[in-house]
């Protein structure tokens, strides 16, 4: 039989290696569906790699794809650290984008150095406020935040559709349900000519750094970690658990809201109801691959973005359905979950004892 023995200390190299192994395992497992779909496996991996890293342009696409994932990954990792199960990053992204559009499409005209902080602030407030609702429902009324955040995603998406077909619809949009374009002052500039990578990436990296410092060096970080470890112990130690949850909810929602402004003001220039192909949900995978560490989130987001960008180009070249990317992402989540087991436990294979009393209880 198999026995789990708790590990007391985990070497950081080991803790770093496991998610990498998990990600690679998921990529290798993708060979099965690729082969089942009639694709040539080695050629497919070649296309994936070339599609993600093959050229300067490809790499820029990859970083543009990684940017929203860094934000949502950070949002999830902060929340999960406190065991606040925020699965609503998708909805928070959309309200963030909506707020950015409300402020940045001409309602206010000001120079860029005012507009950009303004739209960023608006999206953070919107995302944070949206997450405040399930957080308060949890702390005040005891309603499970997993379900409420998940359900709010659908509500928000419908609300965005409503706004884009109604008051916020672009009159010049040829009838498409899309917002007016962001004014040039409210646009995050591109970093290089003719590439889609934009300054949202820098904001994402700075956010990761700030969250890293907050979690490691501040009282808030300590309170968040303590609440996540053991709520009742934290309460006993005098940590204000309720206000910690509220803080975490606000920070987490604000981070997801940033993903929205970055997509709207950096990449697309206007808002549509399909601006996010599930960045919020993928953020959960990013955060788990990162072991909830803010620096890890950056690495994990780049990995997941590589899978998406690479799989897209492989799909175009070989005709294997691009849902393969979602499959790899889902499998990496499951693989990294399993690998967590190796962090927490030493796994020993031991021969079962032959005493009849014990043998009866074996399963």
């Amino acid at each position, binding site marked *: 039989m198999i026995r789990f023995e708790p590990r007391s200390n985990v070497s950081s190299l080991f803790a770093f290696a496991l998610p990498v192994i998990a990600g690679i395992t998921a990529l290798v497992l993708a060979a099965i569906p690729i082969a089942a779909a009639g694709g040539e496996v080695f050629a497919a991996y070649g296309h994936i790699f070339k599609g993600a890293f093959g050229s300067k342009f490809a790499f820029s696409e990859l970083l543009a794809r990684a940017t929203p994932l860094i934000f949502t990954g950070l949002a999830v990792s902060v929340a999960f650290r406190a065991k606040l199960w925020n699965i609503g990053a998708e909805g928070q992204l959309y309200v963030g984008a909506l707020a950015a559009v409300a402020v940045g499409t001409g309602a206010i005209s000001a120079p860029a150095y005012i507009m950009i902080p303004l739209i960023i602030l608006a999206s953070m407030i919107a995302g944070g406020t949206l997450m405040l609702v399930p957080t308060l*429902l949890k702390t005040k*009324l005891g309603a499970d935040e997993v379900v409420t955040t998940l*359900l709010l995603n*659908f509500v928000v998406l419908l609300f965005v559709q409503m706004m884009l077909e*109604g008051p916020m619809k672009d009159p010049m949009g040829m009838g498409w349900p899309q917002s007016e374009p962001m004014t040039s002052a409210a646009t995050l500039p591109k970093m290089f000519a003719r590439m889609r990578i934009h300054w949202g990436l820098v904001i994402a990296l700075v956010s990761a750094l700030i969250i890293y410092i907050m979690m490691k060096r501040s009282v808030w970080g300590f309170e968040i970690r303590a609440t996540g470890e053991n709520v009742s112990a934290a309460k006993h130690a005098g940590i204000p658990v309720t206000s910690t949850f509220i803080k975490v909810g606000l920070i987490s929602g604000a981070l997801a809201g940033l993903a929205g402004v970055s997509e709207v003001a950096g990449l697309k220039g206007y808002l549509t109801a399909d601006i996010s192909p599930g960045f919020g949900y993928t953020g959960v995978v990013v955060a788990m691959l990162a072991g909830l560490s803010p620096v890890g989130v950056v690495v994990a987001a780049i990995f997941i973005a590589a899978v998406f960008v690479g799989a897209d180009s492989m799909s175009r070249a070989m005709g294997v359905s691009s849902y393969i990317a979602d499959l790899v992402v889902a499998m990496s989540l499951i693989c990294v979950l*399993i690998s967590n087991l190796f962090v927490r436990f030493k796994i020993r294979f031991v021969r079962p004892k032959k005493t009849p009393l014990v043998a009866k209880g074996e399963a």
Partner: protein
Amino acid sequence: MEYIDILLSANFWAAAIRIATPLIFGVLGALVCERAGVLNLGIEGIFVVGAMCGWMAVWLGAGLWGGILVAALAGAFFGLLHGILTVPLGLSQHVSGLGITMFATSVSYFTYRTALPKVSSPPRIEAFQPLDIPVLSDLPFIGPALFQQTSMTFLALAMVLLVSYVLYRTPLGLAIRAVGDNPSAVEAQGLSVFALRIGAIMAGSALMALGGAFLTMSAFDAFFFGMINGRGWICIALVVFASWRPGKALLGALLFGAFDAFQIRLQNEVGAVIPSQVFLMIPYLLSIVALVLVARKADYPRALLQPYFRGQR
């Protein structure tokens, strides 16, 4: 006055029951898992799998009841996966469930796209037809509302009876309820906590998959991407509302179906004034309200979310 007319029409109640049917399967499935102490957030993905596999099996010529069987087996398979991850391995039920949802959804979509790479409109199957029961279907009011549903609705109702019989009238049910409340007591009886929990998750997941299959094999006759649209999550909220009881689960699903059917009819009445999205939000908001209403006094199975390791404590 018109609103009363809506409530009094047989058509309305027929729609309410039709909308409730997949939720009955889903809430029952979630209930069985949670009664055994395991939250199954794989539900949303398992709905997709059930919808896709059931439809695909029929499309390939397995027959409608063959499709039901395939859907249930596919659901049980993903349940087994969730069971292995959360029971013997004791991993986070939240994250594992989300992983199962993502995995099951992407497997379904990938399989569908691979089998049907270039279809402009989704192929249709000969779905379950409303029954025509002699005498009963011709009764005034009750006939069209209740007895002109498809066989799958009656299967769902039968499952309510079956689940409540097994849970409350058999030793197996007692063991399942006990394993969700106090697993060490079950272990002390010489029963296997692992086997009971994994078995319950598989059975519950099979039920969830039937909820999905209803959508492609009875409500519609084709598979669409995104057709589940949060129905699974709604079931997770409703199971709390139903305080983990099969009878109340049926009631909750029917109540929800009635609200939803009413909302659709209201949309026809005042649709011009109010954007349709407002109405479409109602089911999700309603689920949140239902959850909040009972959250304070909800009597969660005591060992829910807690992994059990033998010899612990």
